[in-house]
């Protein structure tokens, strides 16, 4: 077990290093010079600017050769220095920006996961209990239907419906905390993305459990149906679902990118787009580091948690 985890850890950390290297190389060779871009936007451009540009490049360490820059970046990163933003919020430490942005996305994601989990497990149980009857078919096809619509389509359509047609809400804009009215629409849309995965997994796990002998035994000894569902069926079902819910954090960072962009929520997804549009190296690298790290850690956690939750895996 320990060797298995060690190999996993090695696999993921070497992978992370490789990804950082490739991302840095892409920035260095492809993204363009952020300092020059700063000046192109101003009209006049003279020899004095060249001097300032050189000084600025030196300041951000952009005049070093590629490998030196990458080495410095890694070294600083390990010491908790993520660099300073070059163009997005000039000279502000990137770590500070990340610490401000990430909690917003996490709150959105967490609220959406809770709602998606509650609704999804409920619907999954329902459709498994009514297996192949109309309740099941309706649930599965409507979940498939909702799952099919991209978030960048569903948000504009909901805006049109709720704001222009029904006049129920004002245009939600920006971030005012997770309990503010404006957070309802993004949370609802993100949780729609969570729902199908949870419903499908709960349903299929439930169907598998339904025909188990111990469920038949429980029923044979006269246990009430509600108790059978809660005590005997739900527990083995919740194991894979809990794992999935953990993994859903991955898709939430991706998925909330569009929602945050459309509704101008100052979260991590919007930071990705802003950083890339402004060619802000340290910001883009931070986005890559955090985005990849979250997924790698969650993958690694699955490897650890699964044996703890499921005794059958532990026995192997």
């Amino acid at each position: 077990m320990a060797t298995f985890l060690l190999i996993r850890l090695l696999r993921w950390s070497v992978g992370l290093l490789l990804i950082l290297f490739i991302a840095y190389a892409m920035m260095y060779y492809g993204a363009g010079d952020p300092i020059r871009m700063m000046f192109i936007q101003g009209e006049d451009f003279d020899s004095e600017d060249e001097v300032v540009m050189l000084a600025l490049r030196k300041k951000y360490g952009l005049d070093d050769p590629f490998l030196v820059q990458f080495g410095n970046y890694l070294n600083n990163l390990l010491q908790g220095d993520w660099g300073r933003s070059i163009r997005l919020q000039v000279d502000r430490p990137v770590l500070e920006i990340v610490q401000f942005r990430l909690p917003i996305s996490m709150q959105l994601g967490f609220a959406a996961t809770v709602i998606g989990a509650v609704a999804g497990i409920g619907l999954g149980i329902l459709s498994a209990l009514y297996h192949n009857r109309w309740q099941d078919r309706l649930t599965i096809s409507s979940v498939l239907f909702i799952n099919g619509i991209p978030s960048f389509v569903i948000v504009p359509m909901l805006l049109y419906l709720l704001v222009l047609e029904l006049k129920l809400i004002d245009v939600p804009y920006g971030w005012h905390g997770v309990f503010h009215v404006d957070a309802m629409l993004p949370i609802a849309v993100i949780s729609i993305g969570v729902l199908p995965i949870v419903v499908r997994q709960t349903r299929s796990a439930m169907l598998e459990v339904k025909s188990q002998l111990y469920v038949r035994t429980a029923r044979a000894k006269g246990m009430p149906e509600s108790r059978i569902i809660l005590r005997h069926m739900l527990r083995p079902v919740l194991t894979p679902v809990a794992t999935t819910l953990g993994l859903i954090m991955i898709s939430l960072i991706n998925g909330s990118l569009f929602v945050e962009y459309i509704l101008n929520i100052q979260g991590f997804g919007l930071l990705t787009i802003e950083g890339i549009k402004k060619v802000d190296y340290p910001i883009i690298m931070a986005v890559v580091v955090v985005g990849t790290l979250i997924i790698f850690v969650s993958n690694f956690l699955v490897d650890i948690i699964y044996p703890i939750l499921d005794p059958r895996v532990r026995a192997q």
Partner: protein
Amino acid sequence: MTGAAAGARVSRVVDDGSITIGEQRNLWQDAARRFRRNWLAVGGLVVVACFLVLATIGPRIAPYDFLEQNIMKAFQGPSAEHFLGTDDLGRDIFSRMLHGARTAALVAFSTTAISLFIGALVGAWSGIRGGLADEFLMWISDLIQAMPGLLLVILINTTLRRPIVNWFDTLYEQTRNPFFLNTLWLDYALVFSALALIGWPGLARLVRGQVLSINEEDYVLAARALGASEWHIMLRHVIPNALGPLIVAVTAGMGGAIFLEAGLSFLGIGIQPPNASWGSMLEEGRRYWQIFPHLMLIPAVTIGIVQVAFVFLGDGLNDALDPRRTT
């Protein structure tokens, strides 16, 4: 069952002991039968077929050129003259939607073709050879799959464009070949390659898994015992058996490619104007959504319908092609 001509008639003993004449169906006929019973999947197939037909003949039946501007007629609602109205520059929305369909179909086919080619090669190689090469290839595909897909695609699209344009500029100055002057198709090439890059690992895993599991089957062992060559086993057993899951994955991949292209163009990173893409039309329409909502709603509804159709089609194929289901 209309395909009965192909099936030989065999006798079958039913539960009550009486003998009835049944039809023997092969896997594909069986799958087609299951598929036709699922009306959502059939609906999805019809929508996808319509989409592909419109994408092919679209520019021929388009009433206007998709770039033709007429500022005097900007922001018109649907009328006899302009079937779906006009956009902020007075361009005919219907013609632009048809052109966008072509973009979407082009992206779907090219991306899936490239990732299927790479994925099948890598997967088959990994599955057959095993060992260190397998370990390495699966590590790479794990890494790509673990990265947030959208982030990877955005990075590739934004960072590879500039060096290629610069490289083409110098190539043009050296060779004076007009080919290097036109970079309009570069948007497409970049979107194809970025999407294929995140698409192949899933297919490689699938192919590898199929190769490994089918090689374990008893009928392959039997064939081997009878002296069949590896080549024969590959052609007669592995490929036909892996086809079903592969068709499902490819359908899902096409839907996913259309989704990602629309999303990228929506963010202003994928297909750039003046090329028409549903995603960029949606983004352009969003600017005026409170005054002229049809500019936003038309592309939004279209993307939604096509995506849902692909999902239902993929789901129906998944159910139909699973040989363990017998109905």
